[in-house]
């Protein structure tokens, strides 16, 4: 934890000072809004991530002005994002409370589902499921261009992985990912570069079906006709998308590269594709799932060759493992900073940069790498049309909901208070992207101590 000077404190409870906000508002334009969701594994190392002004404790609510906070006062975990400080909204005080109340599966699986859908998990089949769509899919349903991909699901895999989806369809099914830059390139530019004529000919089948719907609809009463017309419109939209992707003309088409072997290189290749997809308006919603970093990428190879059980589970028992996971997280921060560099440097055809019209939501499936759900520390980047950026928000953990912790934190293995339900962040994101919702996933629930917890509404102070 990094102690900070009082001059950095913007707005404080418990006697801390109040200062004027610095708001980086995007210039009003007709540019489309975009959402990029980034999800890494194993949560945060809170001690090397959190910012605390002098005298402030975990019990104090406060906001910090990141734009005036000296670089030397930044925590090691956040430091790589210092150069994007004016675009940041760091959130400190949330917990995946509903995941704590859920059962079944394991805590990683539950965490992924709750983190991005805000809803209960379903483990009754052969694959993990949600009970509603993830936030990216909710947004895609509202803002997608009809002639483009509604959303793009990507992953950068760790060793031995084959893609870790974090997006869930409305049915609860996990959405498959393009897990290599080659696969992502094919999804984005394949139809327009070397289309398989057979794939394009599915439009003929759709056209035939639309014709049948039209003929049949004309013979029905108003109710039936409206229903078949609706189905025909949806099918026509599909055909429009196939045609749109085939006829795509995009000035920024990255070279199709063979999948690099290094995680960092694959991350950067995916970043190039993300920037190109946004710049060409190929899609307006992307989720990027980051698999487990190889131990050598963050200096953990001297401890174990297995991040999950060899290092992540030892953060409270072995200082070396705690340090390794802090480095693991900082490595991700550096990657995210590079991706934001690219978004900030890439012109938006509508004016300004891509970052001016993009909201990046960076989260994880856990609060910490020993399966804890508390101290969930996501970051919002961009979204300046909706949020006052350049802020660090802290809300104390005062929600009366017991949270499971490691015995080194509390001998009972449980603390009675949790943070704010993270669903409030999802609601803030949804509203920023133009959705009129007051909850995402679970609106309220009963904690294991019997308290009714309100998970609806937005986070206070973001706008």
């Amino acid at each position, binding site marked *: 934890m990094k102690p900070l000077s009082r001059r950095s404190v913007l707005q404080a409870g418990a006697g801390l000072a109040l200062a004027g906000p610095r708001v980086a508002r995007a210039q009003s334009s007709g540019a489309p809004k975009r959402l990029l969701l980034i999800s890494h594994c194993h949560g945060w190392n809170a001690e090397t991530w959190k910012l605390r002004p002098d005298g402030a404790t975990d019990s104090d609510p406060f906001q910090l002005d990141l734009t005036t906070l000296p670089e030397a006062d930044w925590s090691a975990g956040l430091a790589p994002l210092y150069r994007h400080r004016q675009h940041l909204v760091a959130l400190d005080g949330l917990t995946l409370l509903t995941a704590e109340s859920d059962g079944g599966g394991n805590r990683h699986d539950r965490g992924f589902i709750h983190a991005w859908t805000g809803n209960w998990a379903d*483990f009754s089949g052969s694959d993990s499921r949600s009970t509603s769509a993830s936030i990216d899919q909710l947004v895609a349903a509202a803002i997608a261009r009809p002639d483009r991909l509604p959303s793009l699901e990507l992953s950068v895999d760790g060793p031995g992985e084959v893609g870790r989806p974090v997006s869930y369809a409305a*049915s609860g099914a996990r959405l498959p*990912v393009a897990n290599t830059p080659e696969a992502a390139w094919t999804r984005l530019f394949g139809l327009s570069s070397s289309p398989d004529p057979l794939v394009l000919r599915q439009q003929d089948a759709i056209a035939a079906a639309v014709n049948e719907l039209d003929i*049949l609809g004309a013979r029905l*009463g108003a109710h039936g006709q409206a229903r078949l017309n609706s189905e025909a419109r949806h099918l026509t939209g599909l055909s429009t998308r196939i045609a749109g992707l085939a006829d795509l003309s995009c000035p920024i088409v990255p070279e199709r590269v063979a999948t690099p072997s290094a995680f960092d290189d694959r991350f950067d290749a995916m970043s190039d594709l993300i920037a190109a997809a946004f710049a060409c308006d190929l899609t307006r919603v992307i989720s990027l799932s980051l698999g487990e970093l190889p131990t050598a990428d963050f200096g953990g190879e001297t401890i174990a060759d297995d991040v999950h059980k060899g290092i992540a589970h030892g953060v409270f028992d072995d200082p070396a493992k705690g340090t390794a996971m802090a480095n693991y997280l900082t490595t991700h921060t550096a990657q995210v900073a590079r991706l934001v560099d690219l978004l900030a440097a890439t012109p938006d055809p509508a004016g300004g940069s891509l970052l001016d019209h993009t909201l990046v939501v960076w989260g994880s499936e856990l609060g910490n790498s020993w399966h804890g759900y508390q101290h969930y520390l996501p970051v919002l980047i961009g979204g300046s049309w909706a949020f006052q950026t350049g802020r660090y928000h802290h809300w104390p953990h005062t929600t009366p909901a017991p949270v499971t912790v490691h015995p080194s934190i509390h001998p009972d293995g449980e603390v009675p208070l949790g943070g704010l339900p993270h669903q409030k962040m999802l609601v803030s994101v949804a509203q920023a992207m133009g959705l009129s919702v007051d909850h995402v996933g679970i609106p309220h629930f009963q904690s294991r101590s019997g308290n009714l917890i309100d998970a609806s509404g937005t986070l206070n102070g973001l706008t």
Partner: protein
Amino acid sequence: MAPVRARSRPYLRVPCTILYRCGMALVFMACRDDPAAKTTNNEATPVESVPTDAPMALTPTERNNTIRDLFGFPSNASDWPDPPDIAERFSSPADSLGGVFSPAVQPPVWPVELPAEAGVHGFDGMLDGQEPTAYGVEAWQQATLHFAPYALVSSAFWSCDDPSDLSDTDREACAWNSIQRFASRAWRRPIDDEERERLDALWQSQRAVGNIEEAIVISVSAILLSPRFTHRIEAGKSDSDTGTHRTLTALELASRLSYALWDTMPDSELFRAADSGELETEAQVRAQVRRMLADDRARETTARFHHAWLGTDAVLTISPSREAHAARFGLSPVPTSSAADCDLEWPGVVGPLRHALYADLSLTVIDRIFEGPGTFTELLTTDVGYRASVSEPVFGDVTVDEEAETVSWPYTYVFASSPAAGVHRMERVRHTGTERAGILSSPAVMAVGAYPVHPGPIPRGVNILERVLCMDLGLPPEGAEGALPPDLTDVESTNRSRTEQATASATCAACHDRINPLGFAFESYDALGAWRDTDNGLPVDTSVEVRLDGTLIPIDGAAALGAAIASSDEARRCYALHTVRTATGIDWDAFDPRITPVLDAFQSNDHIPTLIEDIAVSHIFRTLEVAEVSP
């Protein structure tokens, strides 16, 4: 028989549905969906017209089943033939599911995942719950591309033997004949000349730019995307038009029967009967219904209906508290590993248990309807059940039926991030004494009406009122959830007394005086449905007074309540009403005189197969309400 997956999660975990808006409910109780009220006040009830001008869409289950039967493939997807190479061209091999915590999961080739319908009263296949969505349409379009290549390896598709041995010319002719035949079967009636012309135009255009296999795949995709596949198109016999109704053609009636009873297309015998004029008289229709009810497909549909009726699909997602229930299964109340680690013991019990409870209700319903008396009374009073080894601690003392064969029930679930599979050996058992009687006290129903720690008398009571007695309770008042008793293991009173205290105010009592007694009668069953004599050290009190058919009746316990409900007119009419609604897809009002004869008959004869026959030969099932067609 394949287990059916859950999609909904009523009552559990989200307490906002627990306490009910009392004033509104009283109004509804007095004048809306109360079948008993209908029996005394027929004339005063206004009748709304039912819009039947929109065709019914096939449900996700019906679409999958119909595809299977069109291709003549088995229900076990692992026995399907490998898809031809052309299938690869529609899928991206780089797409994947899995990760460091999850081994790659390949979805089965059948059934495909399709978005669930919004549904009405918990049932799919209801006209008012079938609005098209972009996601649903896209999912089906993708499904057609997934399935269409299988036509090439389906002997049921090809109209000729060994097409690969034919000359190009003969193979071309065979392919075109096969397309026409496939369209007729997929659309459940002969294609007309105009349809054939349009199909031919598509076929010719595809042959002009591609080979025969490609043309078949695109044509089959178009046939499956057509509304004539995705919907049941009914025009009726033009010469039967009365100005308000038309009689369905024999083929239209065959489709109604097959989807109502089997969730799939007609079989060859039903098509034959329709084609040969043997589906015209009431006796002929009844004979077909009896034949169809003897088929396994009717059993699957019947089980699905009862899970939808009682909301027990949700048993596949129950989340009982380890602390409260683990001891029953020989586990410690807390995980033996670190508290911060994942619990790998309790999920290993709960995962298989969910499926065992689901299977119990499925098999009991099938047993009692198809192998037993077949009455509503039997369903609600039977002592038969089906037990798996994992559910033994829940079932308690039972007598195993040694003469009955065990039933294999395969299941899958996610365990520690990995797909796990097993097979329950379901033993047919009889519950001893009066500990359990009827499906209303089955563990699945009890577990759905419960919280992680304690049973839920309010959701159990609401379940009976809304699903079994067809009362519309409306929504709970704002903030009512805050009054719910905390679901804690450490309590100082009984579940019943805490619930009474929470609902004691005059505002709540108006409804909860009706809800709570129905729930309290089940207090002898804990949150998993296991029998209990005491609650928090005190004797369980299941003595209540419940109102049935307008009369207040003293009841003690679930067995007595099941028997009372079984003989209640309003419960029988409600069951018949649900059956009529799902058979027709129309959300009939309970008071509609067009369905009264069916409800009246079931109220007196109590026999479920007869109810299905009566619906099948009824005017509403065999006719089409003529819509006003726009000029």
